[in-house]
């Protein structure tokens, strides 16, 4: 199953809490205020981003993407229509927070060399390939394990747990 979409590219060191969103400006940390989160998505880097982003888009970014994260950044991206993040590097906690919210985030060294804003990218989590639809250039990444793919296919942690609990008879 391939994710295909329009690319928005960002640079290095985009922090989750002070870059993807502004955690200190989230009105209520105890719940996800979706309109507020969507309105602050990437505005520190691109003030019009919330108006431009759309369903099925893909974020491409440089090194150290999403460090110091709370899950709010992932919820903001998913609710704004973003379906994958393909980045030079990120931390494991952010991969988890993304996947748990149904948003795959993959470290893929070299991605910035083959994809920029406006390109179309195809991302195959099973085979571990990101491909620029126009130029055909590819970069490989470590494919998600089957248990991770299951979480992604079912849309996040909660539905995936329900499925597994039912299968395990717990």
């Amino acid at each position, binding site marked *: 199953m391939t994710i295909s979409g329009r690319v928005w590219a960002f640079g290095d060191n985009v922090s989750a809490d002070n870059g993807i969103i502004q955690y200190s400006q989230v009105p209520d940390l105890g719940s996800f205020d979706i309109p507020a989160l969507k309105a602050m998505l990437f505005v520190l880097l691109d003030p019009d981003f919330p108006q431009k982003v759309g369903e099925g888009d893909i974020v491409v970014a440089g090194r150290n993407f999403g460090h110091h994260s709370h899950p709010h950044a992932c919820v903001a991206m998913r609710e704004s229509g973003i379906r994958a993040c393909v980045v030079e590097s*990120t931390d494991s*906690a952010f991969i988890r927070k993304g996947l748990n919210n149904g948003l795959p985030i993959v470290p893929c060294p070299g991605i910035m060399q083959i994809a920029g804003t406006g390109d179309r990218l195809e991302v195959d989590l099973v085979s571990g390939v990101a491909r620029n639809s126009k130029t055909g250039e590819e970069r490989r990444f470590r494919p998600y394990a089957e248990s991770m793919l299951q979480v992604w296919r079912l849309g996040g942690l909660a539905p995936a747990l329900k499925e597994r*609990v039912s299968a395990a008879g717990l």
Partner: protein
Amino acid sequence: MRRMGQSVVQKIIARAAGRETVEPGEYVTVTPDYTCCQDISWPARKRIMEQAGVTRLAHPEKLVLVVDHTTAAGMGSPYHRNHGEMRDFAEKHGANYFGPGSGLRHQVLVEQGFARPGTLVFSDEPNIASIGVVGALNIAISTEVVVTSVLNENWMVVPRPIRFTLTGRLAEGVHIRDLAQAIIRDYAETDLLSQGCIEYDGEGVAGLSLDERQTLLACTYHAGPDTALMPVDEAALAYTRSRADGRPFEVFEADADAEYAYEASFDLGALEPLVTVPPELHTVSPVGEVAGLRIDQAAIGTCANGRMDDLRAAASILRGRRIARHVTFYVTPGSREIYAQAGREGLLSILAEAGATILAPGCTTCWGYEGVLNDGEVSISTHQMNYHGRNGSRLARAYLASPITVAASALAGAIVDPRGDPALRRDAA
């Protein structure tokens, strides 16, 4: 095929995965020894389990529930309900429960002997890497604590092994916390440590107490890695034996041909007192550059600096002296055991007589649950975070430093360089 040399983190994960070896970057399924959760996010975790139709846990004895974020659930606070819900859940399922005042998860895990050499702990916080002091591996998985609680397994990424070698000894007035802040300054804005596990070693480690090692481990995540470990030496082993209560453990050492993705060396003797300037963690200044800034609040505690050595350091500065009149000073022992020991050593009375407010063991001021800051107020503390709004008002400013610098600043009423304080010389003599 040549067997690749394995570092300590790889060996711990290989054991938990039932494998001979694992490769850095690999996604593997592992069975943890324990899963540890806190109170503030418990209702959300419980809701996910209920929605999934969970009726029993695969291994309830592996679940450790600790009330540490909302110890003082007073009138008007919604948190007393969490305490009750956690306690009832633990009772119903046979899980481990440590109620308000027991201490931070970081501390409960080592004191109660859950964290032992070679154990893998899935927790809801990366700073619990402090359990690496006894060679236990913390992997922070946030909401997925429900997965491991229920199913007794989960996926993880094998971290890239990183080696940090410590040499030398800390100078007077300098604390291991200063090294933690220097590492964050140098690495947080890079990806050199990303998806890594720092394995500390070197003669510098041998000169550090177990408390000091936990300070460094608890802060390391903010520099970028997933987790961190210390070598299990005689001191760590003796502590483990006193806590394990017969439960098994296995000490792993890195193979001589283990490969590290990145290596660096740090001379403890070359460090100076540092202050992290808000609102970022990587903006760190020598204390001299911010000295003289008037403070309203000082706080010592947290998973970084709530241990005996931290309280002793603060008391040695404050013995027989009185903090500045305009300063509110909170001290939070990291656990009930530390609280009691600090009492036996006379530290609590020294701190109280100096003007400190001693809080019940827990996270307290670190996330603004207690000691809330007003607009324009300035604090200096051993907290872990400093972003705007962390401790109350978004217009307050939160500076971070070692317990020595914090205690000296509380005394002066302004940020000061603790070196040269007569109390330090008195102690040295």
